């Protein structure tokens, strides 16, 4: 393929057409743009005028250039330009494509796959049989799966990097066992794995070997160490090149259980250094949550290191029975514990309830005898969930009654009264030494120093279970340490004090080791191989080649010896011993790809082996782009030609243009000016209503749409307002008509709603508003104005309408006003509630069903809330209504009796408004005798 730099051409012959360009230049230059014909009466004045510039009939040079570019782009476009044209790899005979397939391949795995695909495509073009072999997943010795190149396409998707590097012995054995001759392409991961030379030599015997290798080499991460309160990590790189930084991320679960980055740190490689160390200072809480460290942007199992118990520091809470001995530190019951635990555990101090909230791993009681029952229950629950309670005896415990008769749940054994002391001034015998630990004891194997003696102890009651609970005893067989399992947790009792008062145990190194064995303090990071011997460890989580953490599933357990050897770096990891997290009896061990001593060695290929890069440059056909550019250039040419010919903008008189644009500006200005004005006006209306309704108490009625009805309602409320003003301390302002759809209701304590059969049903929004109004303490007086002739129900059109209106409302159960309702006595004492009509049926919220009449009390105890609705048909507004001059608007009844009825109607109104505004105040009066009675005493 003909190529210029990175661009090749599929039809290079077409490029010869570029030769025509200069010709075209001359041609185009000579042809001026076509003239435009215009009818113009003023031509009479133009006759005889000559053009000033004879040059303008030539196309301007820039337009020519544009056209040349367009034509050149067309020619080049059709010549089929291709960016990064692929070069075919020639060759004959069978081909082996070998790849390392370990974790170090993971970082550029897609690139490797692309390279293999490219090689396969080349092989397919030359009909070579191909075998693709991963050195970490070898076929059986002697086998070489030679297939047609095309058959490998779907199989490549099944290839995955493994978390372990290629196993040297197996690879060499396989390479040597393969028969036949073939060419080899080896995709190397850039690391010097053991046995590489042998494999190379074996393959070279079969045919030429070409190595493909990425210049970027993988990074590795050694397991985290905990030193001096810091988490230290070492980042490895195989080659000593320039300075480089790598970001280490610490992953773990946050309190909500989601995995996230808990900390990050930058490791900087010095030039010429292959290791870079980074230290993380983390709070214990955070550190304990970390499950793994990863190198950012470096995929691969080697860039991930899992953490195990080695990094976890246990939280231990210390609680002493007596804290009051100031100044005598060496006698403090906690002194030796603190000294023993401080380097390896995080100590928590505080009161027991606080400590339990922090959920420590272990709680140590130094001579604590008894606890309040509640704390005891909490503590027991904590122990049952896996807590470790470590108790030390002492004078208090010895003197107390704890676990004497019955075994205390928080004590491993029953204790004898008093305890014993040996070897003292007032006692017989020698101080007792310790007996070697039995095999079942967690302390088994610890060496006994000679100088550990016990002079006093509390004694365990002989019990059937005693024998199995003893995990350490004195030389004479009396229990020294006893342990009891409580569900998932355990309770351990040292029968001596935590200080040196009763024994010299806390002074010895054995004390620390015993605490360690009890998993109170943290063990050294990596267990000894000897420790692991004979144990079986089950994998909990394993790493895949990309560094992802997978659930181990049904992987079989591994032998502790193998694990120990792998941890010590003596045995390689492999498919049987995958890197991951292994769970033993009481601890977790992380087996990482790279051990604490691991280094990354770069591979050095012999000079005879050709080494090529991995990069695959993707072919990009540029034809479309170039032709698009040509089109764009031609479009520009059209515009430019039009412009040159004066046809781009139609000639127009300036005055007109100015006129229309000013008209547009005026129009826009008008819109801008008009829009906010309307909105503002609306807001002002609302504000006005709010002001009017809230500066004074205002009665309000609902607009029904019937002008006469609304007028009467308004007049009625005015009459009631006047009456209130004259007779009570309520001084209402002029009543307001409220439109349910548009007005805010929250300002009004009381709404009068005359029911009009022709009234439209309010909208959903209005009902939402009404319900909110009722819920927040508003009251509506529904008036059907039909004298209730149909009874409370559907007898009249108004009644039916009321039902219809009230259906969507939040109305509680109703009842006719009972005799003792607070409405009967809020201001006047009333028994009737007439309006223009005198019907007795007025309905209010029903009293609670449990309200009972108490002997000797005139009223039931009903003091809760204001009834949200009052429903009746007495046409109160008509009775209250007054003209502007103060005269009554409608006659009520006949003569004096009628006037009396009107007076009672007013009194009902006064009572109603009082009820609305003062709530159940009058109802509370029920309690006055009782209150007075109590005050008297």
């Amino acid at each position, binding site marked *: 393929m003909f190529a210029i730099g990175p661009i090749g051409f599929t039809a290079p012959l077409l490029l010869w057409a570029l030769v025509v360009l200069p010709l075209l230049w001359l041609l185009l230059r000579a042809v*001026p*743009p*076509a*003239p*435009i*014909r*215009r*009818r*113009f*009466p*003023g*031509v*009479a*004045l*133009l*006759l005889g*005028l000559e*053009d*000033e*510039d*004879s040059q*303008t*009939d030539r196309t301007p040079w820039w337009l020519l250039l544009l056209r040349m570019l367009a034509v050149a782009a067309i020619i080049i476009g059709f010549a089929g330009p291709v960016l990064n044209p692929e070069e075919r790899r020639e060759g004959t005979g069978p081909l082996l494509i070998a790849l390392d397939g370990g974790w170090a391949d993971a970082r550029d795995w897609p690139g490797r796959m692309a390279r293999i695909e490219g090689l396969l495509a080349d092989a397919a073009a030359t009909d070579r049989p191909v075998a693709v072999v991963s050195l970490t997943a070898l076929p059986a010795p002697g086998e070489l799966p030679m297939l047609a190149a095309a058959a490998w396409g779907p199989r490549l998707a099944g290839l995955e990097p493994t978390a372990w590097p290629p196993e040297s012995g197996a690879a060499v054995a396989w390479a040597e066992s393969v028969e036949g001759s073939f060419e080899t392409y080896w995709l190397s991961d850039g690391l010097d794995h053991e046995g590489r030379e042998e494999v190379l030599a074996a393959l070279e015997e079969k045919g030429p070997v070409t190595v493909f290798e990425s210049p970027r080499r993988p990074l590795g991460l050694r397991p985290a160490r905990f030193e001096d309160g810091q988490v230290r990590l070492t980042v490895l790189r195989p080659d000593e090149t320039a300075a480089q930084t790598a970001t280490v991320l610490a992953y773990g679960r946050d309190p909500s259980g989601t995995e996230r980055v808990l900390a990050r740190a930058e490791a900087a490689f010095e030039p010429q250094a292959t290791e870079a160390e980074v230290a993380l200072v983390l709070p214990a809480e955070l550190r304990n949550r970390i499950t793994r460290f990863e190198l950012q942007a470096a995929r691969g199992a080697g860039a991930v290191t899992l953490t195990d118990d080695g990094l976890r520091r246990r939280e231990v809470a210390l609680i002493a029975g007596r804290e009051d001995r100031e100044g005598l530190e060496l006698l403090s019951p906690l002194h030796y514990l603190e000294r023993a635990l401080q380097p390896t555990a995080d100590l928590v101090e505080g009161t027991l309830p606080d400590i339990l909230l922090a959920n420590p791993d272990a709680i140590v009681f130094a001579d604590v005898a008894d606890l309040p029952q509640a704390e005891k229950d909490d503590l027991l629950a904590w122990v049952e969930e896996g807590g470790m309670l470590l108790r030390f005896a002492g004078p208090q415990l010895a003197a107390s009654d704890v676990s004497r008769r019955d075994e205390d749940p928080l004590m491993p054994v029953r204790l004898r009264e008093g305890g014993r002391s040996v070897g003292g001034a007032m006692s017989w015998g020698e101080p007792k030494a310790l007996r070697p630990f039995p095999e079942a004891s967690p302390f088994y194997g610890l060496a006994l120093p000679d100088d550990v003696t016990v002079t006093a102890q509390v004694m365990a009651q002989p019990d059937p279970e005693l024998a199995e609970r003893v995990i350490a005893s004195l030389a004479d067989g009396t229990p020294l340490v006893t342990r009891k399992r409580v569900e998932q947790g355990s309770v351990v009792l040292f029968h001596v004090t935590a200080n040196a008062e009763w024994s010299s145990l806390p002074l010895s190194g054995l004390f620390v080791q015993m605490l360690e064995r009890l998993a109170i303090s943290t063990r050294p990071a990596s267990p000894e191989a000897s420790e692991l011997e004979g144990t079986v460890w089950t994998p909990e989580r394993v790493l895949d080649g990309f560094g992802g953490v997978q659930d181990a599933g049904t992987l079989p357990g591994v032998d502790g010896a193998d694990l120990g050897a792998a941890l010590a770096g003596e045995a390689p990891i492999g498919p049987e011993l995958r890197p991951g997290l292994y769970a033993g009896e009481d601890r977790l061990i992380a087996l990482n790809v790279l051990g604490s001593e691991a280094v990354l060695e770069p591979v050095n290929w012999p000079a005879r082996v050709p080494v090529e890069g991995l990069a695959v440059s993707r072919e990009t056909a540029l034809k479309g782009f170039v032709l698009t550019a040509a089109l764009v250039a031609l479009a520009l040419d059209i515009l430019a030609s039009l412009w*040159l*010919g*004066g*046809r781009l903008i139609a*000639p*127009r*008189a*300036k*005055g*007109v243009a100015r006129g229309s644009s000013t008209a547009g500006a005026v129009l826009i200005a008008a819109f801008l000016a008009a829009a906010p004005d309307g909105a503002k006006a609306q807001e002002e209306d609302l504000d006005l209503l709010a002001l009017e309704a809230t500066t004074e108490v205002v009665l309000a009625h609902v607009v029904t749409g019937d002008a006469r009805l609304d007028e009467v309602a308004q007049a009625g409320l005015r009459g009631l307002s006047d009456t209130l003003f004259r007779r009570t301390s309520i001084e209402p302002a002029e009543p307001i008509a409220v439109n349910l759809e548009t007005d805010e209701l929250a300002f009004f304590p009381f709404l009068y709603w005359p029911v009009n059969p022709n009234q439209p049903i309010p909208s959903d929004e209005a009902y939402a508003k009404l319900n909110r109004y009722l819920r927040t303490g508003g009251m509506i007086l529904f008036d059907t104005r039909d004298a209730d002739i149909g009874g409370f129900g559907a007898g009249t059109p108004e009644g039916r309408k009321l039902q219809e209106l009230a259906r969507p409302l939040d109305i509680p159960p109703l009842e006719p006003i009972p005799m003792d309702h607070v409405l009967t006595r809020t201001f006047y004492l009333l028994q009737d509630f007439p309006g223009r009509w005198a019907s007795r049926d007025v309905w209010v919220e029903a009293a609670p069903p449990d309200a009972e009449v108490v002997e000797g009390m005139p009223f039931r105890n009903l003091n809760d809330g204001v009834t949200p609705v009052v429903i009746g048909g007495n046409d109160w507004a008509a009775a209250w209504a007054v003209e502007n001059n103060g005269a009554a608007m409608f006659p009520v009844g006949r003569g004096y009796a009628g006037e009396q009825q009107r007076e009672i109607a007013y009194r009902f109104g006064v009572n109603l408004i009082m009820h609305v505004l003062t709530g159940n105040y009058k109802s509370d009066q029920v309690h006055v005798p009782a209150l007075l009675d109590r005050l008297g005493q």
Partner: protein
Amino acid sequence: MSDAGPVALHAGVGRGLRSKAEGLAAALPPLLADAEHLAQTVLLGAHGRRRSGMGDEFWQYRPLAVGDEARSIDWRRSAKSDQHFVREKEWQAAQSVMLWCDEAMSMRFSGAPGKRPTKAERARLLSLAIAVLLVRGGERVGLARLDQPPRSGPLQLIRIADALGGAMEAEEQNLPGPDYGAPRGDTLPLHSRAVFLSDFMGEIDAAENALARAADRGVRGALLMVLDPQEEEFPFDGRTIFESMGGSLAHETRKAGDLRARYLDRLAARKDRLEQLARTTGWQFSTHHTDTPAQGALLWLYGALEHGR
């Protein structure tokens, strides 16, 4: 349509006549209405010669002088004093005004067809409007196209409108005609008034001749040059072939923009020449653009005729 039958029967003659009549009827009222509407905007001042003479309006009383006929004495006024008074009327001789509205093809130009009227439309509107005004003032009005002496009265208005409608029809049907028009000075009545509405884009000599002839015949009047804004601004660019409306003249340029200044110079020179001609012959000259309201031009025309009286 019950009356479609007879019309269809005489299709050959009837249709042409009828469609023409309908077209005329359709065109006339709007033109006349427009003109009336335009004329309404001009407030008529006192119409008189400002001196005594024959007329209906009272002008002044003057003492009886020697030579006055006895029957000319106004006895009512004279009875109030010892002197004899003669009642004089204001001289109200009607004037003849000839209108010439250029109908050449150059007048059919509009820089923005549909948005702006053609020059001819504007000229016709102005002609009819001034005719309405003059008739209302009692003058005799004639149209050069009519070949009739000026007359007064509403009937004459109808005739003028009719004639202008004919011109409008010719424009609408795009009938060929001369590219540029020229007024004629020799057909004007002696001592009458004349109004020439044209773009004066044609040969200047024709206009010059006409004015000279008119001046010879004691005719004075007004020249109104009706121009499209494009003719005033020459907003063209690029390689262009300019053609006259009839196509008789053509001019090609490679860069129209370069010609602008020189074109404008020539236009200004032409205006100057017309102005000068008008001054020497006692005429009035003004320019009107079709993108400006017609009222201004009408006022000017009216004033120019008033001025000359």
